[in-house]
């Protein structure tokens, strides 16, 4: 047997597939584990043989970028191996995503929780951008949540690197509701600002608990955006009328964000507004967002282990004895979350959290 083949077999032996958990157009996802440690993993099996052009682009992108990126807030690719004509990606196991959590009506989000998710998203995104990688498909269900509450950016199937200005890129990226107006207007030259717009939409969605700019078509997406944020003027966004697919959409007045986000603090609205600036060059960068006053004002971000979790996720994360003995504390965390002053909540919740905080210390980023 060739050395390469032998090495592959060794790798393959390290991982065990347990159960199919999902099937997509080009991949099947299994829950599995590392044979020697029983550490839970997800194995994404990509069918390769069916493509006439060989290994397909999204698989290549995903592998290429995840191989290079190691960060607490980016999903970790643990291994890659092949089985016959399939490519298997071994990823860290994450049992939930932000979309599930947003949709779970039994969960109450405190402002500190939203701040925590935003901080983790921006940290992961800043790391991608620092490594010259655009994600190009940020949305709540691509932000996965680990059992210890850490948020991880996943799905790099549309990612690409960027470096030189003036290099043409496709504008057919990012799920519509999270797509910035420059892409909707057909811009082929764009930047990290496209991802920041998506994060802005996710930020709003966390507060509203429903998608913020839910257009029904690409054209309607622009209308929905302008209806919410006002039609941009030449002064707001110089040159936008010259973009390839520009069409006049109609004149909508600017309404203050405050009208919709009634409970949000001034810092919150300021950061949100800076993520949703029309002129991409003036939109805040992930790096600057991390030092925005919002993250330094009270309430401080919730510790990841104290964030709201879906019910299924709690059971999955709890060791058996916790389930037997401390059912109440588990419930407290999930259901009895009321908006209280930051001081109060840390006091009452810290006792619960200590009992729940059984996870290993999180690895440094």
């Amino acid at each position, binding site marked *: 047997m060739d050395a*390469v083949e032998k090495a592959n077999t060794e790798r393959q032996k390290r991982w065990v597939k347990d159960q199919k958990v999902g099937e997509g157009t080009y991949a099947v996802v299994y829950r599995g584990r590392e044979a020697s440690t029983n550490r839970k993993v997800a194995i994404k099996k990509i069918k390769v043989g069916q493509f006439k052009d060989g290994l397909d682009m999204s698989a290549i992108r995903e592998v290429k970028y995840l191989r290079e990126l190691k960060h607490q807030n980016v999903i970790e690719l643990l291994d890659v191996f092949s089985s016959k004509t399939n490519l298997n990606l071994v990823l860290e196991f994450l049992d939930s995503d932000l979309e599930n959590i947003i949709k779970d009506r039994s969960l109450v989000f405190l402002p500190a929780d939203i701040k925590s998710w935003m901080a983790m998203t921006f940290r992961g995104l800043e790391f991608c951008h620092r490594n010259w990688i655009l994600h190009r498909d940020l949305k709540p269900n691509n932000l996965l949540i680990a059992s210890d509450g850490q948020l991880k950016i996943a799905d790099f199937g549309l990612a690409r690197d960027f470096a030189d200005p003036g290099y043409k890129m496709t504008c057919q990226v990012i799920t519509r509701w999270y797509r910035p107006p420059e892409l909707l207007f057909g811009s082929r030259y764009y930047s990290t600002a496209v991802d920041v717009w998506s994060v802005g939409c996710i930020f709003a969605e966390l507060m509203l608990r429903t998608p913020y700019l839910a257009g029904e078509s690409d054209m309607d997406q622009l209308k929905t955006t302008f209806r919410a944020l006002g039609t941009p003027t030449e002064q707001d966004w110089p040159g936008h009328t010259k973009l390839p697919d520009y069409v006049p959409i109609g004149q909508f007045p600017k309404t203050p964000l405050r009208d919709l986000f009634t409970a949000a603090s001034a810092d919150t609205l300021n950061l949100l507004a800076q993520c949703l600036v029309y002129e991409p060059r003036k939109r805040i960068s992930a790096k600057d967002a991390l030092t925005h006053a919002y993250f330094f004002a009270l309430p401080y971000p919730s510790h990841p282990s104290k964030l709201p979790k879906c019910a299924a996720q709690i059971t999955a994360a709890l060791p058996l004895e916790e389930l037997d003995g401390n059912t109440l504390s588990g419930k407290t965390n999930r259901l009895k979350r009321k908006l209280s002053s930051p001081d109060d909540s840390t006091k009452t919740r810290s006792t619960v959290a200590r009992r729940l905080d059984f996870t290993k210390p999180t690895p440094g980023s």
Partner: protein
Amino acid sequence: MAKTPLYEASTQFKNWRYSPDSLASVRASLNSAAVAVIRNTFESDEPGSSSAVSFLTPDEELLLVRLYISKIPQLCGFFHFPEEVEATAVSYLKRFYLKNTVMDWHPKNVMLTALFLATKTTNNPISLEAYTNNIPKTSPSDVLDLEFLVAQSLGFEFAVWHAHRALWGIWLDLQSVPDAPRNRATTHADIYDAALQHVRASRLSDAELVYTPSQIALASLSMASPDLASEWAASKFPPDSPSVPGLQTTLASIRALIESSVVPNVEAVRAVDLRLKLCKNPEKVVGSKAYLAKKAEDERKAEEKRMKKAAEATTEGDPFGDELAGGPGGIDDDDDD
């Protein structure tokens, strides 16, 4: 705390750096392992038949690989691929032969596959049909059959950092150092072009497996203009910096590598290639006795595995059986769906 440079977090830095000695020893051990296997195959086919075979030496293997490296720029020129595709394909081909030998896989097809894969990994995809239709005597399967093996040999590490990008960075730096003459980019364009030619020449050598992209770029610049190279280095290191003497030695070694890198003599390569026809692994020659024997053996093993799996399936449903009865095998690749 000092931040780790981005480059040092890359798979290139972690997994594809060698010393000249370690490169030589990797190649020697791949070569001798291949010779042993092939000799064995010959002998089992017909005892005594391997004694007359003159196997390739590691240097001869390298010569053949270099010839095919030199074909990549020609193909890229024909297809108008960007420089990144060309440089990436060259890196892939070199890396492939640090895990495999020429006697198993002929570099002609591996080169075509590495280039095709590089178009995709650098986001410049082209259809396989358009690719192979324009290359004489090449069918889609010549490329596709090896794609997985190539990807696997690369450890699925597709990202490559290139010296030509580092040179561009140095070039931009030189336009913004204090007191840089205005319009330097236009008045000194010939220097940049000359340096880029040296970077391209370095691709024929082992430089990228030993040195960092920025070291190769700076050495190339120093060949085109020692003054500009010193000016740039002075802007990055204080004159009394302890790194400077070491840097000079490194640059000198890279210059020596670049100067000695030439396209191999075609006649010399032809002689090696002729001998390769006699000593390549018969298990990889479609239709040969050894190939058929290997195939039969593989099929027998696969059948055995299927039987084992079927046997295991019957024990399913036993609530205690799965974990315990599974045994150490545990390779379940679930390929039956």
